[in-house]
């Protein structure tokens, strides 16, 4: 397996991985804001968000129709749709693509559900590796508490209830997340994860993440040649009308 850079793509892909509650989504959002402000061509893609597959996935989840095999396949379908329709063309066009979760999420989660590891990896073998993968590693208790603090209603599959680890969704979630963490850590070296200490302050992590991105990717290559179009200027008459209204109050 090769990265997009190794395959000669002009674009670069940065992925974040980690447990629910590790703060990875916050960090990649802040990376996106920074890159946009720097004038970089940037695109953000989220796990499980393809419009087309969504209705099948949500039906499967709501009605608890999914088995480990179909759970794995339907997420692979979703990923393939995003990969072929958005990620590939954007990477060909020289974008920096940011992915909140990538194939490693499936590698960890589907294997915990009991799918054969070689089968899962084979199904995703059409995908190139990210050029940079951040793994946000928080203490298991910290991640769990961030999610469970408000005693949210955990969804069936989210809590790993299909694995019948415990009749209590919160206990099930804890065991499930612990096993996913083990899977992540076991593949960390193989896929060259950049470990981030997710127990640190948000700002500290973001500074480190920005520094690493700058070191690993020559951002000047990804700048827009022309600035983004500005919003249309406010019409003078309209502005005057607002002022009059204001003074009338």
């Amino acid at each position, binding site marked *: 397996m090769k990265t997009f850079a190794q395959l000669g793509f002009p674009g670069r892909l940065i992925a974040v991985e980690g447990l629910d509650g590790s703060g990875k989504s916050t960090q990649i959002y802040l990376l996106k804001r920074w890159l946009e402000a720097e004038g970089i061509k940037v695109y953000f893609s989220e796990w499980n968000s393809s419009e*087309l*597959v969504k*209705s*099948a996935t949500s*039906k*499967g989840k709501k009605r608890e*129709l*999914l*088995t*480990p*095999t*179909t759970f794995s*396949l*339907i997420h*692979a*379908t979703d990923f*393939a*749709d995003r*990969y*072929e*329709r958005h990620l590939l063309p954007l990477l060909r066009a020289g974008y920096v693509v940011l992915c909140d979760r990538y194939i490693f999420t499936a590698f960890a989660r589907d294997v915990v*559900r*009991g*799918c*054969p590891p*070689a*089968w899962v990896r*084979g*199904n995703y*073998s*059409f995908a190139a590796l990210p050029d940079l993968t951040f793994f946000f590693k928080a203490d298991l208790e910290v991640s769990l508490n961030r999610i469970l603090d408000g005693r949210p209603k955990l969804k069936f599959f989210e809590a790993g209830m299909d694995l019948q680890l415990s009749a209590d969704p919160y206990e099930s979630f804890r065991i499930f997340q612990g096993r996913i963490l083990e899977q992540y850590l076991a593949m960390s070296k193989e896929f060259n994860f950049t470990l981030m200490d997710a127990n640190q302050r948000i700002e500290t992590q973001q500074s480190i993440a920005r520094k690493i991105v700058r070191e690993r990717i020559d951002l000047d290559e990804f700048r827009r040649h022309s600035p983004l179009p500005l919003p249309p200027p406010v019409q003078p008459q309209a502005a005057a009308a607002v002022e009059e209204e204001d003074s009338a109050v």
Partner: protein
Amino acid sequence: MKNPARQTVAVPSASERRFFGQGIPGVKLDELAGKLIVVEGADGSGRSSQIAALVNWLETLGHATVQVGLKRSTLVSEELEKAQNGNILSRTTLSLFYATDFADQLENTILPALRAGFIVLADRYIYTLMARDLVRGMDAAWLKNLYGMALKPDAVFYLEVPPEELVQRNLSKNATLDYWESGMDLGLSRDVFDSFQKYQTAMQATFRRMQRSYGFTIVNGSRPVDVVTASLQKKISAVLAAK
């Protein structure tokens, strides 16, 4: 009773079960007492007529049957239909979507029916799915891994009918040629008549190649319906009796 043989119903022997690859997690193969019989072939090859005849015959003999086919899953059949009509999915995505549909039926219909001792008649199986993708240039090793989840059937019959005759049968039945069965997405020809023949010729060549590695039975589907049925019945009887 006119036919005393029908009073005693023969119990089929146990099958030697295996998956093509790693299979479905948690399935106990020795619990699958029924039989899985697959009929493959292009539209117009006589698949549905043959399956209807086989169901009738098997039930008369005292065997319970269940029928499955592609794009019939509860989970994704609607979405798959929609995606196909819009022709908006790229190759890998469509392939995985079909695999999801297949897996859903495998786990929720085929395996439970086999566990309960039914004879499952599958109107197409992974062979059509693989052949379609192979003709479209998908990676053979990738497909082999993907469908490693599938259960190996007890018998697979591929009804082979020459493309020229398939055209005639499809036109006399529907007065039109189906977009996908003509392989129009491949851009082989802008003329659907032409494209259908080229595509079906390629599909047949692929089935012939797959036959060498998967060892299914190629059945001459050009013969009259009852002759084909009789030949299938003979082969299935052997499967049901086999030790």
